[in-house]
């Protein structure tokens, strides 16, 4: 079922045992390093690393299958649209023109354009496994505990963790409501025009918002009745102290980011790697 997509299931291995804070830091470092650089060699390296981490985490491909399909569709569309709107952008960036063949007018296929577009989709594609690892291997409450420890207000941290927590519930609600509305004749399938479909989805959102508000009132009452917000500080049942592995991993994340910056500044001299000159 779809709702299982974001459910956290506990496992015992290196990645799962890292503190949520570590995983957040590494995620940010590695994402930033690929977003910053347009050097496909470095991006492929990071992608390889994230695939290795994915393997290490012991996550099953089927857990992320659906997400992967969405990402591939998105990337394919992105690839196509980029070409449609700016077929000459590669030439602009790299300053050379190695034409392979031409469809018509400005729609030529150049090595420069290919490199630019392939680089761009590898960037996105390399972030996906990392994002999945972060979402699926981090216990939301433990994550809140880590955030709290680095000085973020615990109420804010808890709110974030509850959001992660209730996401699967909201997906479930959405599915239930969507089915019930379809049984009244609301068509969400592709048979209907896009405009009508968007309107129909709006009709689902209203009950979804109301049932979510009910849920929020209930949970905030339950939390208050058990003393949430009484003191400036609180302790955490699930808190994990930072261990050697955590420090090592964060250092590793920082090195990857530094590598990307160094490559840009000292080797390539710009965000782009230019093999054509």
């Amino acid at each position: 079922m779809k709702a299982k997509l974001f459910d956290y299931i506990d496992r015992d291995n290196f990645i799962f045992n890292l503190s949520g804070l570590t995983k957040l830091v590494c995620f940010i470092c590695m994402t930033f390093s690929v977003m910053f650089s347009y050097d496909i060699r470095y991006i492929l390296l990071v992608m390889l690393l994230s695939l290795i981490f994915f393997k290490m985490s012991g996550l099953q491909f089927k857990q992320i299958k659906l997400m992967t399909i969405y990402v591939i569709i998105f990337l394919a569309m992105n690839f196509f649209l980029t070409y449609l709107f700016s077929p000459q952008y590669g030439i602009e960036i790299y300053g050379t023109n190695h034409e392979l063949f031409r469809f018509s007018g400005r729609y030529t296929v150049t090595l420069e354009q290919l490199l630019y577009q392939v680089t761009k989709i590898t960037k996105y594609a390399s972030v996906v496994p990392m994002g999945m690892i972060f979402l699926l291997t981090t216990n939301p409450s433990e994550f809140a505990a880590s955030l709290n420890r680095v000085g973020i207000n615990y109420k804010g941290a808890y709110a974030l963790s509850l959001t992660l927590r209730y996401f699967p519930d909201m997906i479930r609600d959405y599915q239930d409501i969507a089915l019930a509305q379809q049984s009244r004749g609301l068509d969400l399938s592709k048979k209907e025009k896009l405009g009508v479909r968007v309107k129909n989805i709006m009709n689902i959102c209203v009950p979804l918002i109301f049932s979510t508000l009910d849920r929020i009132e209930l949970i905030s009452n339950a939390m208050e009745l058990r003393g949430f917000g009484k003191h400036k500080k609180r302790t955490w049942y699930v808190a994990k102290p930072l261990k050697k592995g955590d420090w090592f991993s964060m250092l590793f994340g920082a090195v990857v980011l530094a590598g990307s910056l160094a490559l840009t500044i000292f080797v390539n001299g710009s965000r782009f790697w230019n093999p054509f000159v």
Partner: protein
Amino acid sequence: MNYTERKPVIEFKDFSFQYFSQAEPTLHDINLTIYEGEKVLLVGPSGSGKSTLGNCLNGLIPFAYKGEIKGSLKIGGKETKEMNIFELSKKVGTVLQDADGQFIGLTVGEDVAFALENDCVKQEQMKAQVQKVAEIVDMGKLLKSSPFELSGGQKQRVSFAGVMVDDVDILLFDEPLANLDPATGKTAIDLIDRVWKNSRKTVVIVEHRLEDVLYRDVDRIIVVSDGRIAADMSPDELMSADILSKLGIREPLHVTAMKYAGIQVTPDMHAGRLATLDIEKVKEPLLKWNLEQTKKEPKAERPVILEAEHLSFQYTKKRKILQDVSFQIHEGEMVSIVGTNGAGKSTLAKVICGFVTEDEGRILYKDQDLKGQTIKERSHLIGFVMQNPNQMICKPMIYDEVALGLRIRGVAEEEIEPKVDKALQICGLAPFKKWPVSALSFGQKKRVTIASMLALDPKVLILDEPTAGQDYHHYTEIMEFLKKLNEEGVTIIMITHDMHLMLEYTPHAIVISDGKKIGDASAVEILTNEEIAGRANLKTTSLYDLAVKIGIEDPSVFVQNFIDYERGTYR
């Protein structure tokens, strides 16, 4: 009992409360004292103020729900006005109605620890304390489980542990039975009783299912009506007073049966609980009454409208949700589908409506195979009403909400109006035609969702828990309304675990357990069959137990007589 020796822990004195959002006070001149170690049951129809009274105890009033308080309320000798909600939460532990919604942590252990975390207890000490409390409620081995893996009853145990971990003096249970099936409800009452006896804490239970709470002893019952205290007496006294039925609260069925048999209930019969009832005093008149009843002729069979043949369904390969389920429903029937949570009854409804597609078998509507028909196509024949109306209503105005389905179908506006009018008329909502939905009560919203289905003129109506969270008055209102609909020719299928509903309104019941059909008979036969009732987490009705106690050979006849008599006298 000598109350003067006992220490009062809850004292209401000339207490009134008015929500800022309301024109009238919800509670008037409450004078009530609850003593240390007492077990008290608060009953009353919804809107009577019993939940408000409970919220005054735990501090949600006035801290979360604002309003004006007059008079005094002392808890543990201290004015609540001078305390804050956190101080109060150390004295009064509240187990809220919805065990799902109040599950804060991601695992059992974390949830139980929540109050300790907020008190900055050190992690090691916290873990030890959590373990200890979890063992009291038999959840010690499940500390690592996530809420998805727990049953409704287990979730409730967790919330119970979550308030006990604070070592509170007063335990407040807000409708503890609302979301539980009958057998689990019985265990919950048992557990509350055990904790009460072992720890001698003060226990306050707010609940309208009187009979189920009285499965175990309570010291006093406090009846709230219109924001005032209508009665404050022991169960035995209350049964002999003529208070409950006047206020629209359901008496225990054995008491009703005694009254039908013309017995004048007196306190010395100890009629509060069936277990304490003095059988010898009531046996003769009950037996006599049973013999006087004449058996009704069974109605002629109508043609089959909906038929399932060998239905099987599974989400994943590992677990079959439905296995080889077959049944027939006749035109104009009122049928209940019962079984434990997760038994597959909701899935069965989903398969019928086409939300999910069966793996094997088929569904026939009047001999026409529904295979391949989309949700939309089936919706012309079958309407589905969800449990929570807030999950269905998507228009701000009542008229638009009911008209929505017709508008989507492209029906001309001049044709829509008479159809909507008729649906509103049937549902008793005609005066509200131009009103916004937000002005309605929960029960009325439920009727709006039914009206929006009726406007589409379905032949079969499936309702998921139509009466969940409704008191006896609204329950009767909704059920009588469905009954009327049914008499107009709509076949009605209800998913429920309310045994009263089954007995009273649905002559035909289908029992699902672990995805298989284990019973398909009259409701009376099901609820007097200990084996089926046990397997489906139902329990036999107390009427059955009463019949056995007075020595009737075929208890199901007694139960049937009771139902027929009730239908005959009241409706």
